[in-house]
């Protein structure tokens, strides 16, 4: 072989390898996905920040490795029940006869088997389940290899633990993540093009619920929102989604909300360790010093920023023992309301049927609408156009002495939220009378729309308002302003 052909050979080889490496460009392991941290977490001092992150990661994991925290009222899925018989099959396998738990059905195949022997949890080899024969009440699970240790009769088992959460994650990443973000932070790639913005689940608050004032969203509420969409926003209807998929995605959304809420609760507990709080402390100390130094030139100098930061870290270290409680408390305080959300007595049911939609009822509603008792008109405007005087005010930021820089109402997420134009006939939370009733009864959670139910107004009064409000799109604006009744004239 002469040198010329060798060069050309070498060139061919290098061209081919270049081509191959170009082809494989971008292959390999995908980057690990992560749940974003909230602004508040990022604002914590290094130690507090690390602790919050560790606590959240430990209990919720990452998008790739979800953690099912048993303390939470989440149905993680899987086929659970008790072992009723154990047999060793010839050829080395183990055959389990199992009784299924309530509300679960045996899968056709399984990737994971866990069982609880006393206090110990054992796990079968991955993919060790050879076959499953589902029966009416008892099913048999055949393992390819002999189980070691062998489960006892009466042990609790679960096949495919966390299956629902995993299905939910798949569906969420396909259908929801684009707007709502991986962590449910409402900051997905599409979010910046949307107005109104997608919901940030991380406060555990959803606007449109059927539950009592201040209560969490129920599964049925989430199902309704997913099925019907939210007119007037970018939330579309997922009517054609398979029921199991919807159940799974609802569970995942609840779980994501809890993850965010847990993080928020820890942040609230550790507020004093945020950089903002420390800066505020420093500022106050400086002001105090400036005041004191006028009388006493030898007044103690205020601590520097570095000193304050060091002191915060020391304080945090001193708190180490209490942290365990903070964490457990946060979990328990959070679990209760979520658990309660689906209870029947937590769903608002009017004590009386809808008051007949007569002109008299609407008139009563109109008077209420314009009264000082409800002050509906201050935000929604006397004609219902959503242009009440309150939209011209500068509103205070919740939990702060400052006001928002722009005029108008803001929601808990800090976004400008115009009061609904009631003459348009567009109802984001549903247009059934009961939906409007519940909006008035429990308010719109996370927004300045207050709850009138129970204390402020009687159910009958709410129905009058419902009748009035639902008639608004069909009546000219003149009916509300042309002949203000004496009550209205004085109340304004």
């Amino acid at each position, binding site marked *: 072989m002469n040198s010329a052909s060798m060069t050309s050979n070498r060139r061919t080889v290098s061209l081919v390898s270049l081509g191959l490496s170009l082809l494989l460009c971008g292959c390999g392991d995908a980057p690990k996905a992560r749940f974003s941290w909230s602004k508040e977490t990022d604002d914590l001092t290094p130690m507090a920040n690390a602790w919050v992150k560790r606590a959240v990661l430990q209990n919720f994991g990452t998008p790739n490795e979800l953690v099912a925290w048993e303390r939470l009222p989440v149905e993680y899925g899987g086929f659970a029940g008790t072992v009723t018989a154990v047999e060793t099959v010839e050829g080395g396998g183990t055959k389990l006869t199992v009784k299924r738990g309530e509300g679960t059905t045996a899968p056709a195949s399984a990737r994971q088997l866990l069982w609880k022997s006393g206090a110990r949890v054992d796990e079968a080899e991955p993919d060790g389940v050879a076959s499953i024969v589902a029966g009416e009440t008892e099913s048999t699970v055949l393992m390819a290899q002999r189980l070691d240790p062998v489960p006892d009769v009466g042990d609790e088992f679960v096949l495919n633990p966390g299956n629902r959460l995993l299905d939910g994650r798949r569906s969420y990443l396909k259908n929801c993540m684009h707007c709502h973000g991986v962590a449910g932070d409402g900051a997905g790639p599409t979010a910046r093009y949307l107005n109104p913005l997608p919901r940030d689940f991380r406060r555990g608050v959803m606007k449109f619920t059927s539950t009592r004032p201040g209560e969490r969203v129920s599964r049925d509420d989430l199902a309704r929102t997913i099925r*019907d969409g939210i007119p007037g926003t970018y939330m579309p*209807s997922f009517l054609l989604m398979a029921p199991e998929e919807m159940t799974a995605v609802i569970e995942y959304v609840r779980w994501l909300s809890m993850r965010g809420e847990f993080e928020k609760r820890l942040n609230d507990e550790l507020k004093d360790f945020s950089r903002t709080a420390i800066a505020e402390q420093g500022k106050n100390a400086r002001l105090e010093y400036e005041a004191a130094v006028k009388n006493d030139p030898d007044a103690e100098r205020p601590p520097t920023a570095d000193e304050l930061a060091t002191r915060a870290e020391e304080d945090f270290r001193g708190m180490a023992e209490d942290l365990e409680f903070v964490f457990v408390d946060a979990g328990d305080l959070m679990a209760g309301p979520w658990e309660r959300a689906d209870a029947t007595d937590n769903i608002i*049911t*009017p004590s009386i*049927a*809808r008051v007949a939609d007569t002109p008299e009822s609407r008139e009563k509603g109109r008077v209420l609408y314009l009264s000082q008792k409800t002050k509906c008109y201050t935000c929604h405007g006397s004609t219902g156009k959503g242009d009440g005087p309150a939209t011209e005010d500068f509103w205070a930021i919740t939990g702060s002495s400052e006001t928002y820089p722009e005029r108008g109402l803001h929601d808990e997420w800090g976004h400008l939220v115009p009061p609904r134009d009631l003459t348009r006939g567009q109802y984001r939370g549903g*247009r059934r009378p*009961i939906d409007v009733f519940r909006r008035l009864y429990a308010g719109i959670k996370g927004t300045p729309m207050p709850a009138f139910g129970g204390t402020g107004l009687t159910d009958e009064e709410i129905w009058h308002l419902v009748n009035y409000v*639902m008639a608004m799109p069909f009546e000219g604006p003149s009916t509300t302003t042309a002949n203000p009744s004496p009550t209205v004239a004085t109340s304004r």
Partner: protein
Amino acid sequence: MEGRFWTLVFVIFAAAALAACAVAPAYQLWFPGSGEALSTIGARIDHLFYVILVVIAVVFVGVNVALGYVLWRGAKQPSEVKAVYSHGNQTLEVVWTVIPGVILLALALYQMDVWASFRMREFYPQDMRTIAEVTARQFEWRIRYAAPDKTLEADPHPDDVYTVNDLRVPVNRPVAISLRTEDVQHAFFVPELRIKQDALPGKRIPVWFEVTRPGTYDLVCAELCGWGHYKMKGRLVALSEEDYAAWLKQAFEDQFDDGVGEGEKSD
């Protein structure tokens, strides 16, 4: 020899194309669903399609046979025989202009009825009823029906019934929808009925059809309308007259649910 090779390439290519068309229906590569149009106007549109397909098939076969023949003969011809140039043959040109012209004109006249009855108000079926207003928006279909026993009007009424992504119609009766869009252009497309109509901002476009078989059919958007275009899908449910009436009544009741009475309905 080389000439014969090319003859075979061209002939085999044409034969393969024909064969692929012939077996396509058996592999579900033809029209969606059963392959049959499930609306009266759809059946007429399919008929036109097949007429055109036959004309095209005849032309396709004729052209390819002629091409194959010419190539084959040319390949057999000894190389010393001179080629004949027929360029500028007026008779030939007139013939191949007039024949397609006549065919096109015939097709244009033949399809006029279908076009008129689908698109022109004067030719709509006499007993047609507008049953729903379909408003497309990014990325769903919002639908408004009149209350049971009422007629749909252009303006919303307090007793209207609303659904989303779920259009229900009675079968064996010409029905129309009033098509609108809230934002950009969309297109109302029910492939199994062969019904497709663009929705234009600011316009209210009537679209009529008569479904011939009860069932659930895909309703999709056929106009690229934004990033979520692909997920803008709903369903069209065709019901018998009684089922439709029963459904509308139920939907009306659900719509005016006051949360008291037989309790919360989850659907």
